[in-house]
């Protein structure tokens, strides 16, 4: 929004010919954005509408009929809540996600601080290796991990899920934060050192407070990833009493217990939390990602 505003503000004092050109560009831009939104949102809208239609309505007419004869029912949601055991699985999702997010941010920040602000042997090699290994597909590590945690007797607990979710994002997190930390003027760190701050103090009292936006964007990113992951919790937690919302929705699809409309309702329940989160925090998200990119 503000980018577009500042663009118009910039073009205002220009000559009339180029103003016409800009005008055309604007129209083209808006058209493109509008079309994208249309393509993107139509299926989502259809699903959303479907969650409020009864099974019999859906079997007779297409979803757009809902706009012609609006007869909303809540039964899909009621059934979805009942079948997925929403209460418990939302709690599971939260228990799975929140520690993962906190851990990811903390460990990424510590790693990035060490790489950006401390001098030790093999620093560059470590950094390159970390960036490089991200091209490996995560599925590659799942079997060894499963064996490992089976041997430790930790499957069926949240611990392996936390660790693996963190492990998959931390390298990216370090990469994201590294650029930002490296851009913090070294004078600040040196001033703190002279003021008597130890390295952990510098980290917690100088570096972290200055990195709020980037840390927030990493946290939001990891929240979305962990909240939406299916495979890892499925493997390590099964579909029993510890399973998160995603697993419950998936098993609903498999057993076909409630019908299609119930399934879509369940899906919508599972995206509400990340949706609310990203809409309320999108300012930080965008600022953090852009800030890191520009400065790093």
């Amino acid at each position, binding site marked *: 929004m503000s980018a577009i505003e500042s663009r118009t503000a910039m073009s205002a004092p220009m000559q009339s010919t180029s103003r016409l050109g800009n005008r055309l560009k604007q129209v083209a831009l808006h058209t493109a954005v509008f079309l994208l939104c249309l393509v993107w949102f139509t299926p989502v809208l259809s699903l959303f509408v479907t969650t409020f239609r009864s099974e019999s309505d859906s079997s007779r007419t297409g979803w757009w009929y809902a706009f012609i004869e609006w007869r909303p029912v809540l039964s899909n949601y009621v059934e979805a809540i009942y079948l997925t055991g929403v209460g418990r699985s939302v709690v599971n999702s939260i228990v799975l996600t929140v520690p993962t997010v906190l851990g990811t941010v903390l460990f990424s920040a510590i790693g990035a601080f060490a790489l950006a602000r401390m001098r030790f042997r093999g620093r560059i090699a470590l950094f390159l290796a970390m960036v490089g290994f991200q091209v490996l597909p995560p599925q590659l590590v799942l079997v060894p991990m499963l064996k490992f945690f089976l041997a430790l007797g930790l499957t069926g607990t949240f611990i392996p899920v936390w660790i693996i979710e963190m492990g998959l994002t931390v390298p990216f997190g370090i990469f994201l934060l590294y650029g930002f930390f490296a851009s913090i*003027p070294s004078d600040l760190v040196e*001033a703190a050192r*002279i003021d008597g701050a130890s390295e952990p103090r510098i980290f917690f009292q100088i570096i972290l407070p200055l990195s709020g936006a980037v840390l927030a964007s990493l946290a939001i990113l990891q929240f979305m990833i962990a909240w939406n992951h299916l495979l890892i919790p499925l493997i390590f937690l099964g579909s029993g009493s510890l399973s998160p919302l995603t697993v419950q929705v998936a098993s609903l699809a498999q057993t076909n217990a409630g019908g299609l409309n119930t399934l879509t309702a369940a899906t919508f329940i599972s995206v509400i939390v990340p949706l609310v989160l990203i809409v309320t925090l999108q300012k930080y998200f965008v600022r953090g990602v852009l800030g890191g990119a520009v400065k790093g």
Partner: protein
Amino acid sequence: MANVNLRDVRKIYNQTQVIHGVNVDIDDGEFVVLVGPSGCGKSTLLRMIAGLEEISDGQVHIGSTIVNDMSPKDRDIAMVFQSYALYPHMTVAQNMGFSLQMRGNAKAEIRTQVEKAAKILNLEPLLERYPRQLSGGQRQRVAMGRAIVRNPQVFLFDEPLSNLDAKLRVVMRGEIKALHQRLGSTMVYVTHDQIEAMTMADKIVVMRDGFVEQVGSPLALYDRPANLFVAGFIGSPGMNFLSGRYASGAVWIGDVSLPVSDLPVSASEGRQVVYGIRPENLAITDDDGLPLVVEVIEPTGAETHVVGHISGQRVIGVFRERFTTRPGGVLRVKFDPRKVHLFDQQSEQRIN
């Protein structure tokens, strides 16, 4: 408060040596300015005193201790950075109190110390502001306040005024000097501006390419520069240099003889020398003077600067009296023979 002594201090980055065995003694309570052109190693030297840069060789003493292996916080120093390095997420008061907080002082104690320092620097109304809400000069004062609060043995400044405009720089120059008089602490101040050095220092250390060229009081450096580099670096407009030959008590440029009263060692007879004379040591005289061919005249009111040449060599004169000569004309001048600086052309060292 303490003395600082540098003993044969060297700094080597990878293969390149940037500080070549520096010896400087800074007395307790002295205001010492390290001055020199860009890249000569002033900041590096200061940072070695601070403990931010490892000392490759030699010793740094603060008080009676060798601090080579001490961390910055244990050296009891405070540093003011060119960028000020204020913590952006802390208020002025928090910035100033940070070091005391790190020492574990009580909140009330920190508050009193901060207020005391704020009073000295007229920062009281700004204590609850953030650095981004301050002007450049105010930030500069906060940076000094942060140093004062620590009550350190030694203050270190690295070009603290170079981000300010010319007028404010003069004001802050005075404030730092007043602060020194008030606190009586040892201060080491880095600048590349020789006017700052002259006006502020008790003692100036002139550096070039990692070597100390000369150490002395501002006027000692001005009146008796030890070599060509110092002679050219100190003073504005700079000293005039005329190259010639020394023979029988005078310097000869072609067939013009320039007077010298403070004679060099006799071994200099017949040597190629550089004859140095400061612009204000030229005087307008009558017809028997040296002919200064005038190119540019710059009246400043109190005095007039004249750029011209004598026997093809460029000379600048600064005169208090008014005259009527126009550019292109000839002004007859004479040099004060007691104010002549003679340098050996080869070694560039002073020889009188």
